[in-house]
């Protein structure tokens, strides 16, 4: 092992030990399993460059530690279902869940809001005490009738269960079946109560299962099927990501018949099983339905990564390889077409960003997927971790990050603060809850869930924005003004 690597591993171990020493014993023992350093790969291993699946993941958060995780409802309504624009998503239960998640995920969608696009709405059954006592099925039925009357162009309704639904024994499946018969539209009951599972992750899975059970047999839209039909899966169109991806896929000669679920319609969900290939971006949140479509409909799937030019080019080639030469030729042409843009972006931003250290803590795919985009800009990843990953995500992380990188799973507020304090990275990429504490410490920050109200970051067009944003975060003059001149040490 090289000397500096050895040093960094030893340093991380010491830092982890210090952080853990603050915990009471029981919590200490649990948290110790989630903190580690990316290790060396076994001999002969070629797929990964470091071993990251040594941390424990996808287990319950320790109470009282300020986990950054959300819940199953957030994973279903907030992530998977919420972006489908022509369905009305009812936050079924008390008012809060729908309120706090109202218009917060920036899943862009075209259409006329309130007429054929309902993404930026908060529909709720607003449970009162009597609904808890007597059950909410009747209220749900009536709500669906009211939606049908007031929003005639809504193509269906999903019922996103909040915690009380599963606890009071409501039968939302029966309501869904009955109302489907009554109004002739797709009604999807989703059992994504927030207490289920340990994070958003089970919510994704439950949401995928609901797609399988209540949507996939539908008719879809009428279009001329071709051998080049694909679906974009697990792209939620944050700031338009799915669009800056779609444009590339179309340029290489593919037809995106289903966009899941950013800017999606019900028809696009239903179209999916007829496609030739599923292209999955966020593996964590939608691998389940891809596996189902593979088994049931014979649609193969592959992962891809549209962050940063290296991965975009590699992904375009890998995708094209699944098709004929015409697509492969176009892929090469597209890569060549965008190369001048890439060169310009790198010429402008790389000198300003080279060598800067980044720490990441995000959700589904980004703690690994964005790594190469930073590398493309000459930046280094000092630490990374996931809110709700499973072992297979950590395994895949090894494809991207170097040995000696700090790894933290389901990190707590305390741990993250201490790690940042000690490592003093040049940039932290995480969420809104982490943004302001980190900035107070004088460290530049970008929200990497919402793209900090920017984006898209996917595709070549997105990479230019990504580079610009990292530059404006790191190189803003404000960071030099934190110390009052009369307080500066001599």
């Amino acid at each position, binding site marked *: 092992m090289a000397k500096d690597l050895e040093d960094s591993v030893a340093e991380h171990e010491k830092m982890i030990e210090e952080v853990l020493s603050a915990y*009471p014993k029981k919590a200490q023992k649990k948290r110790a399993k989630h903190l580690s350093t990316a290790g060396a790969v076994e001999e002969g291993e070629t797929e990964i460059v470091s071993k990251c699946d040594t941390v424990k993941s996808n287990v319950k958060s320790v109470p009282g530690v300020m986990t950054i995780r959300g819940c199953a409802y957030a994973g279903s309504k907030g992530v998977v279902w919420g972006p489908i624009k022509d369905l009305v998503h009812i936050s079924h239960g008390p*008012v809060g869940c729908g309120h706090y998640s109202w218009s917060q995920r920036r899943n862009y969608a075209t259409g006329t809001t309130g007429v054929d696009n309902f993404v930026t709405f908060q529909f709720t059954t607003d449970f009162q005490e009597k609904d808890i006592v007597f059950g909410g099925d009747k209220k749900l039925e009536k709500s669906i009738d*009211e939606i049908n009357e007031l929003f005639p*162009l809504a193509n269906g309704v999903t019922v996103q269960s909040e915690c009380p639904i599963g606890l009071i024994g409501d039968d939302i499946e029966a309501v869904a079946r009955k109302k489907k018969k009554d109004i002739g539209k797709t009604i999807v009951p989703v059992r994504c109560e927030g207490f289920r599972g*340990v994070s958003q992750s089970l919510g994704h899975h439950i949401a995928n299962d609901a797609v399988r059970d209540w949507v996939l047999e539908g008719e879809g839209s009428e279009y001329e099927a071709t051998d080049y039909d694909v679906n974009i899966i697990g792209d939620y169109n944050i700031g338009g990501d799915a669009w800056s991806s779609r444009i590339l896929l179309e340029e290489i000669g593919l037809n995106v018949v289903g966009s899941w679920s950013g800017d999606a319609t019900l*028809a*696009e969900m239903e179209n999916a099983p007829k496609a030739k290939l599923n292209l999955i971006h966020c593996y964590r949140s939608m691998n389940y339905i891809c596996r189902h479509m593979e088994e049931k409909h014979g649609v193969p799937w592959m992962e891809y990564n549209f962050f940063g030019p290296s991965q975009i080019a590699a992904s375009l080639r890998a995708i094209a390889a699944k098709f004929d030469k015409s697509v492969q030729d176009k892929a090469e042409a597209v890569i060549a077409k965008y190369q001048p843009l890439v060169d310009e972006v790198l010429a402008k931003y790389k000198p300003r960003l080279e060598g800067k250290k980044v720490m990441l803590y995000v959700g589904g795919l980004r703690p690994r997927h964005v790594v190469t985009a930073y590398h493309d800009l000459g930046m280094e990843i000092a630490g990374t971790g996931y809110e709700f990953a499973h072992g297979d995500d950590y395994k895949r992380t090894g494809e991207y990050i170097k040995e000696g990188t700090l790894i933290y799973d389901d990190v707590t507020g305390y741990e993250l603060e201490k790690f940042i304090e000690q490592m003093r990275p040049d940039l932290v990429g995480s969420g809104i809850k982490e943004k*302001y504490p980190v900035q*107070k410490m004088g460290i530049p920050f970008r929200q990497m869930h919402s793209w900090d109200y920017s984006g898209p970051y996917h595709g070549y*067009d997105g990479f230019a924005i990504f580079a610009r944003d990292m530059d404006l975060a790191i190189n803003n003059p404000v960071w030099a003004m934190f110390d009052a001149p009369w307080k500066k040490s001599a």
Partner: protein
Amino acid sequence: MPQSADKVLDHSKLFHEPEYKEMLENKRAKYENATPAPQVTEILDWTKSWDYREKNLAREALVINPAKACQPLGAVFAAAGYEGTMSFVHGSQGCVAYYRSHLSRHFKEPASAVSSSMTEDAAVFGGLVNMVDGLANTYALYQPKMIAVSTTCMAEVIGDDLNSFIIQAKEKESVPADFDVPFAHTPAFVGSHVDGYDNMQKGIISHFWKDAERKETDSINIIPGFDGFAVGNIRELNRILGEMGVTYTILSDVSDVYDTPSDGDFRMYDGGTKLDDVKAAVNAKVTVSMQEYCTKRTLEVCEKAGQATEVFHYPMGVQGTDEFLMKMSELSGKAIPDSLTKERGRLVDAMADSQSYLHGKTYAIYGDPDFVYSMARFVMETGGEPTHCLATNGGKEWKAKMEALLASSPFGAKAQVWAGKDLWHLRSILATEPTDMLIGNSYGKYLERDLGIPLIRLTFPIFDRHHHHRFPTWGYQGGLNVLVKILDTVLDKLDAETGTLGETDISFDLTR
């Protein structure tokens, strides 16, 4: 290719470039199974009709875009105003992520709170273990001076008993026996965030006052209530009462915790009401609530303790501030200083200077019950008409109070009060009976877009404009801030309407 390194286009411009427009049109035409444009237009027009309004207002079950949040948000906000206090919310963990995000998005500040992270096993067996372990972890990691416990609806539905759980946690030495762990049950299916604020204040005060022997002093307690402008307003309150020389204690002062400096240190806790001051607050002769609907249960505790109580409805504007100052003067025996009288004169002066632009303007106002009351009153002071007053979390009592207020002025004659209605109701109301302006929070931007009625952001939450909450809306100075925001909107609108070159710009006046 629209993108370039020289001039990077992000979402606001990129998707309006021809390549993307064509791509999106193609997507819509081929794969979305979209409704043809004429039918979309037809339905859009219908949603703005009287027919639609009647159907919309007849809704009995579905709630669409309500202007209210749930109880624990208010509880977390209230607890944040006490020295070194960590909120511990017992129940599912996703809720806490939501409260923290929500508060951070408004204040652009850290918002700390922890969860007991209950999952399916806790749903079956109860969350005692989560409480016991959780309190120990919070205490060890975040070293608070107090942990304020509230509940998510999950814990409420399964019936966890906070009092008993906290006693058991202390027996198990999660925290020292004498450590302050006040609590409040805050079911999300009862009331709204203003009730959660109330319950947590009640919980904290009851905790400190329960065994206290009260020796009445001349001090005055002030409870600010749930307020997105708390940072500016509480500081303004301090300034005003300081000038008057009043002895007072603010119960829950969030002004510093939601406005910490950037100097290299992250302060998880900053400022807040000192715990010793909360204890001593039992001796105050009177507790003044700045927002009645945030403090009904809390004031009962104060009255039980032997204190007098006084209530306001988020006092704003001339008369609201007059009444507040006179009441403080009466309670404290301190005169209102000339400096404040002069401030009053300056606000009135500004209103007189600008009255021609404000007289007869119509407004729709929505928000929490106390805010809407005061805002409507201030609007009437400027000669404006609060045509529609809406509070999703307002009830019958509030409606009656609003109607009495509106009846007190000729400018309220045409006003309608909408208790318990939501912002989709308001869309129908404004589509059929429009006003000149809309006063509310960031969610109002959808109404502004749909109906072309300019929005003035004067209440929580404000996500899409920065830092307004750092400036007060209370007091005469606050009144001036509110006045200027309204005036800017009126004059910007006038400029926009008269600003098309060669068409409408004959009255594009330099001086207005």
